[in-house]
């Protein structure tokens, strides 16, 4: 290969390496509804506060791009809550997000609280009249062109999914139907997962919405199993717009999950030097080889497979070591 070709390839790899690694602009609206009891208020507010803190500290979301509407202005720490979560305030907040966001931006809407109703009339209980799922759908339509994800973590939230489903839009609900009316735990696990490294399933430093959803769903399942309780909340996700949710997106027949996998909630900064970019590209290629090897695992005996896997993983580890050494020389790791 000529030197010119090599330079061109490295440049190409650099472009490839940066794609998806840099953080897309994100906007966040969190709505916490009526709690009814102190314990629920604590749970809802903790989830909302964790979301906002994580968005600010790990996802680089500017304070102006994150809105929390709560059952009362005193729900969060000083200044955290932007207003009371009335129907009008929610509509205005979505309108504000529509105006301040640009095409391609990620807009994440999170509803936390107690749900009620059925079908298009499903609701989240908020101070004053409760907006229906159909109304949320109309408001989300204002965000056309953005990469929209709405998470309804409330009880009885399942019927929101078919109402809000749209091509390119991610809809997550904590329950699979309006009949699952018990208080949910999905948001507690979801916020724990995103606030720690636990939800980053492949530990690549890029937490996707799909990873966060999968983590929370598994954690809910595990918590119920550990307590020997019957599972009364079955989270689901739709992102192919067909209005039919998928619970376990890892099964081969799952039709949902592809859009959520491309929504990166938190990512490392893009590389600053061509050497690092090249190493990253090599590492990514090796990771692809690991994936290819995994797919052909049944062709190997256990020992040969482990040896082949180790060879690739050691090569990856060595690239990582080199990257960190370069970054250290350049003035500190990201």
């Amino acid at each position, binding site marked *: 290969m000529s030197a010119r070709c090599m330079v061109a390839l490295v440049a190409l790899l650099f472009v490839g390496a940066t794609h998806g690694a840099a953080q897309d602009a994100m906007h966040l609206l969190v709505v916490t509804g009526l709690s009814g009891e102190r314990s629920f208020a604590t749970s809802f507010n903790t989830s909302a506060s964790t979301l906002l803190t994580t968005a600010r500290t790990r996802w680089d979301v500017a304070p102006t791009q994150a809105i929390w509407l709560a059952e009362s202005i005193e729900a969060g720490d000083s200044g955290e809550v932007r207003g009371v979560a009335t129907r009008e305030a929610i509509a205005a907040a979505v309108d504000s997000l529509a105006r301040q966001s640009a095409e391609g931006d990620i807009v994440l809407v999170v509803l936390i609280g107690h749900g009620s109703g059925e079908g298009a009339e499903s609701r989240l209980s908020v101070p004053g009249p409760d907006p229906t799922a159909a109304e949320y759908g109309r408001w989300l339509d204002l965000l056309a062109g953005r990469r929209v994800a709405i998470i309804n973590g409330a009880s009885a939230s399942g019927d929101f999914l078919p109402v809000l489903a749209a091509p390119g839009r991610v809809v997550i609900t904590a329950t699979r139907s309006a009949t699952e009316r018990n208080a949910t735990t999905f948001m507690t696990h979801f916020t724990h997962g995103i606030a720690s490294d636990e939800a980053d399933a492949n530990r690549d430093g890029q937490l996707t919405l799909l990873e966060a959803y999968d983590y929370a769903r598994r954690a809910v399942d595990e918590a119920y199993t*550990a307590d020997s309780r019957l599972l009364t909340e079955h989270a689901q996700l739709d992102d192919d717009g067909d209005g039919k949710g998928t619970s376990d997106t890892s099964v081969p027949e799952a039709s949902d999950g592809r859009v959520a996998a491309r929504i990166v909630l938190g990512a490392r900064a893009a590389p600053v030097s061509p050497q690092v970019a090249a190493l990253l590209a090599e590492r990514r290629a090796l990771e692809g080889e690991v994936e290819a090897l995994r797919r052909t695992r049944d062709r190997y005996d256990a020992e040969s497979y482990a040896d082949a896997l180790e060879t690739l993983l050691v090569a990856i580890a060595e690239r990582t070591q080199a990257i960190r050494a370069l970054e250290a020389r350049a003035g500190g790791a990201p």
Partner: protein
Amino acid sequence: MRNVLLMGVLITGPLAGQDATLRLDRVADAERAWAGGDREAARRWASPVAAAWERAQGGDGWSPSAHIAAGRAWRILGEDDPTAVRQALAAFDAATRLDTAGVEGRLWAGDLLLERYNAPDARVEYRAVLSRDEGNARALLGLARAASFEGSNDAAPLAMRSVAADDRYAPALHFLAQLLLESEQYDSARVVAERALALDSTLVEGWGTLGAVAWLSDDTTSFAATERRVTAILPRPAAFHVAVAEAAARHRRYADAVQFAARGAALDSLNARAWGVLGINQLRIGAIDSGRASLERAFARDPFHIWHKNTLDLLDQMAGFRTVRTARFEIVAPARDAELLGTILGPLLEEAYDSLVVRYDYRPPTPIRLELFARHADFSVRTVGLTGMGALGVSFGTVLAMDAPAARPAGSWNIGSTAWHELAHTFTLGASDHRVPRWVSEGLSVVEERRARPGWGAHASVDFLMALHGGELLPIDRLNEGFTRPTGPGQLTLSYYQASLVMEQLESDFGIGAIRRLLQGYAEGLDSEAALVAATGLGSDSLNARFTGWLKTRFAVPLAALAAGEDGVFGPSWATGQEALAVGNARAAVGAIRAAHERFPEYGGADGPLAGLALALLATGDTTRALDAISGVTTRDETAFEANQLEARVRLARGDSAAAMTALERATWISPEDVTIRRMLAEVAAARQAHDVVVRERRAIAALSRTDPLTARTDLAEALIDAGDATGARRELLTVLEAAPAYERAQALLLRARAMRNGGGTP
């Protein structure tokens, strides 16, 4: 014989609306043939009666006695046909409707319901009979059987009432003989069974009880004679062999039970009970596949049997269980729990095996299978076939069954001591050829718990002290009744501790050799009296006198306090001390609580003065004495989770990490799925370079970290590297990195492990 003939007479004679040629009296013949295993004859005689009843639109116009005859015929045909059972009940109910003053219909309905394992409905029928005829022996027997079926202690008194009502009622006498046999009163059982058989020689199960007494007493001559006599009466007496099999199983002689049940099944291949007893006991000796096959045959013939159905359902579920193997054990558990249980119980069981081999000079065959169940109901089904059994574990010999941690609330029991206890049974059962009585076996198992770890096993309790003070403890020669016929759960609990003290004293006075000789005596067929004499040279009376004296010396202080007649065991200062502690007056609390403790210094329950004393002393800043107090709890109460946590924290604060580790280890056996405690233990152990403990704990944490396994497995890999096990670390890291190749921490560790394996040592 008399009863059956009488019944035959009752149903003869002109009956309105029935076929004049119909021989209702042949129903009794059918029942006799049925009892003797001659199904063809039984059906031949029963079918016409049932068919006639059906043709007559459910016996329309028949007399009550004819309905009863039809019901009895349907009962025979219902052996493998649930529809026929329903017809039988309908016929009995019709008899009751027509003869509102009579009781026969209800008695037959009750018997049928009980036969079909429906004790609650059977009880309703029997009670209805007794409301009209309070001395009805058959109804009283029915209630006794229902009580026995449900494991109630009321069975014996009800059976006695039945016999008192009619001392010539053979079935009641036989049932009483069965109860006597169950409580290992062989001589009484034999006498009563013989009386029953003298009244009705066709009672095949009565012969079974007589045979079982002979077999369990190792009287092979009498057994052979009994077998010959029953065979002379009934050529294919499957029920005889099944009855012996059931008795053998109740006496923990499961291999014998398998042999007898197999003979019963061979004599009558359609006998559901024979296949059922065979299957259940095959499962108990670890023959899982053949046990399942036998139970399938039983279930096909008798789908009503809830034990068989439950067990088959459980076996289906167990197909998803995972087996973790160690050198001498197979730990079988739900896939979700297997790694944790294998990690913590595997090494413990191996340690226990080595320890117990030395103690008993006996080496059980291996592998020993330990099954654990995440639902207590499943454990209960595995052991007694029904839900609701209270025990934590069961030993069938080389097959053990236990609750898994999820089966019970964390902190309510100790999984380590339970496993040790059950394994000790494996040794005492094996060393005695499965002839050791419950009291000895349980007593030794509790002793072994206490020897295994400070704090494990039963210790002195307030209830025990009160029973000792009140003279309520059973003498040694009756101690087995505390297990086989306890007056309540309280007596059972007391009996465990008392039996352990008897064994402890025997060993203290006569050495471990006496314990081995005792077990050997049982193996040779000696009864308890003879075995005790062979082991110690003393009979139970002498031993009991020594034991009582020993107890009085050992508990002299609290007995004196009780004799003084003050309030309760701990006296009024206990309440005073608690109040002082509650209001923050720690110094006053120390004095009062110490006074309470000194009244019963052997007591270390977490609800007692020692725990309060520790808190009060901590509040005064006297950590040295506080630790003395708290360790008095943690070394006497095997479920004192919070006390162990407290001890660990205080010891760590004082820089005593070795003792803190010990306390944390104790806590992990009480709450095995508590990741926080295991992390704490791993960290303390790591600081002390106790690599084996770190690796074990990190492995346990990995097994428990179901939502974030990558971090936990990476921690485990790091622990393995620190312990010098680069190969094990590589295995874990490949698993982690296969799922998450970009995980930098794991990558770095993989490079370290590789360097070690290439001879570079730990980088």
